């Protein structure tokens, strides 16, 4: 008779195999999640050490982001991020050095040349649209990008992300409405961590699942456990394929956890119970996924060490590189207010 362990492995294998994913795919996802986490943790250390004034990041959101980004064509498709999209922008092509350059606000920061706060990602080469701070404004942009893709027949789709609080903005609703009327190839992602800074979901909205709002716009809505990478991937794949087929937008709500305070300016102990802060550790997507990989026999101790050694080197390199890089010259500060004939 088959042992319990063997049966477990077989069930697990059938899970990712059913999605058409092999071990190497899962390891790639894990690598990005772990890289995002390591960079993210380093950012907080640097902030605490007084090397940078501010950090805002995505610890706890990595699983949702890896699942979604793995479902798109990362070269072809567009992404409109928000400040927690650390893992997502890495998967879209941004490098650890580029993220650190933005943290340190250095001239070479590809997102803004040191003009914006960290977390405001953008990169023309990777089709990551430049982002601002006002929550919600990115949603209509994604619809426009998708509309343009349709008109120009580029075959691209657009993924856009936001937090639960952001879904309260008019822009959010207006975007869903517009996109559904015109069947724009866009995937609306909400990374629902249950809080908007200190405001809990029950004071943000009267529904439990944001995905139910899709109904009001006549599009499919999915609620998925954002700590379960494969579950997110499965749902995102459906949404991406639907968009690609020209059938229009979908709304994907990933339930995630915010493992850190909102930002380095926040103290979450003031409004979140200690038990809650302890409990969310058990659904840390990185821990959950590692466990899956181990049980499926995809990652052993040696593989784990190999991945994490590589990541540590990359994070060290990025930190040193960005710290030593020069600040932007104030003489450049008046540039790019308007189009420049010879503007880089």
């Amino acid at each position, binding site marked *: 008779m088959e042992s319990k362990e063997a049966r477990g492995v077989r069930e697990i294998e059938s899970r990712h195999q059913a999605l058409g994913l092999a071990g190497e795919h899962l390891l790639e996802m894990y690598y990005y999640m772990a890289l995002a986490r390591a960079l993210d943790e380093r950012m907080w250390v640097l902030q605490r050490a007084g090397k940078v004034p501010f950090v805002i990041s995505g610890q706890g959101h990595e699983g949702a982001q890896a699942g979604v980004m793995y479902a798109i064509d990362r070269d072809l498709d567009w992404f409109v991020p928000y400040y927690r999209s650390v893992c997502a922008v890495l998967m879209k092509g941004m490098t650890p050095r580029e993220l650190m350059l933005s943290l340190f606000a250095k001239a070479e920061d590809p997102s803004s040349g040191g003009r*914006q706060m960290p977390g405001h990602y953008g990169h023309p080469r990777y089709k990551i649209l430049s982002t601002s*701070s006002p929550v919600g404004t990115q949603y209509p942009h994604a619809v426009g990008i998708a509309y343009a893709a349709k008109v120009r027949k580029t075959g691209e789709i657009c993924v856009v992300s936001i937090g639960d609080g952001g879904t309260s903005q008019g822009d959010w609703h207006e975007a869903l409405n517009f996109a559904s009327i015109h069947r724009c190839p866009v995937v609306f992602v909400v990374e629902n961590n249950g809080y908007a800074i200190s*405001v809990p979901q029950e004071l943000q909205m009267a529904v439990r699942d944001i995905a139910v709002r899709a109904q009001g716009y006549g599009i499919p809505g999915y609620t998925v456990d954002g700590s379960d990478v494969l579950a997110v991937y499965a749902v995102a794949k459906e949404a991406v394929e639907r968009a690609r087929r020209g059938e229009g937008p979908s709304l994907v709500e990933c339930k995630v956890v915010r493992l850190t305070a909102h930002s380095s300016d926040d103290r979450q102990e003031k409004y979140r119970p200690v038990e809650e802060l302890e409990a969310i550790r058990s659904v840390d997507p990185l821990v959950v996924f590692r466990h899956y990989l181990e049980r499926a026999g995809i990652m052993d101790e040696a593989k784990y060490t190999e991945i994490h050694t590589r990541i540590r080197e990359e994070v060290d390199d990025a930190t040193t590189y960005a710290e030593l890089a020069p600040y932007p010259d104030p003489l450049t500060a008046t540039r790019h207010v308007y189009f420049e004939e010879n503007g880089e």
Partner: protein
Amino acid sequence: MAELRLIDAINQALHEEMERDERVLVLGEDVGRKGGVFGATEGLYDRFGGERVIDTPLAESSIVGVAIGMAANGLLPVAEIQFADFIFPAMNQILSEAARMRYRSNGAFGCPLVIRAPYGGGVHGALYHSQSVEAFFAHIPGLKVVVPYHPGDAKGLLKASIRDPDPVLFFEHKKLYRMVRGEVPEGDYIVPLGKAAIRREGKDLSVFAYGLMLHEALVAAEEVAKEGIDAEVVDLRTLRPLDKETLLASVRKTNRALIVYEDNGFLGYGAELAAILAEEAFFDLDAPIMRVTGPEVPAVPYAPPLERWFMPDARRIAEAMRRLAQY
């Protein structure tokens, strides 16, 4: 009298007004359990409860729009916009609704509403946590605009704003929150809207400023005083309605005017001051009106050298004072 910081004075005014009048309530993002991202509403939730201290959804248009309705039906809402930079989703409600309610109803409906918002740069806030937005609102008849500098004023002006029958935009410079202390009278202390304050008397030139720039102007005035330039520093406090009398009287005395504001210069608030001086005090002026302002870029950049480049400060103001005094 207690020496308080600006943030404490605002907090005290809110506590006292909510205590005094149960129609007063506070609404905004994170104003409840967290006590506001800067702590301005600290303690209100515990004292007055969730019905009067509302953690709103993340949607500025509804924060202001709902407040307008509350005001129409007997409450006195104090809405907080977390950063002045995020007031724009509520622009339509403020300009089309709050500002025009009284006029369009021929006086039948009013809009007794206060909108508080931290503004200004110099705090590593970058493009979207540093803006000075006062000019957009001071432009609009029907709105009042207040920018306190002194903690005592912050209390007195906020109380006056809450009791004012019309909509008031109350902009607090976030860098001033914890920077300076000042005497704050206890109890029911009111500073009437529409009155400027002379912070430093002088005879050689007049400096007009508000908010953080007022602080920088005072520092600059002490600096040039060592060189024998005696500057008068006028704190405008209420940008609309403007205290024209104090403005004109000061220039009639000193015959020289320097206007300082942090926003970019073009069509900023100080442009109106310059126009008024040119129209009404032309023959009293011995020198061209001068301005020290932020540069013509859309907002304050983040990298420290760029942020320093943007921010007008005491050094730049002192330089302008010297040039003006030489005329």
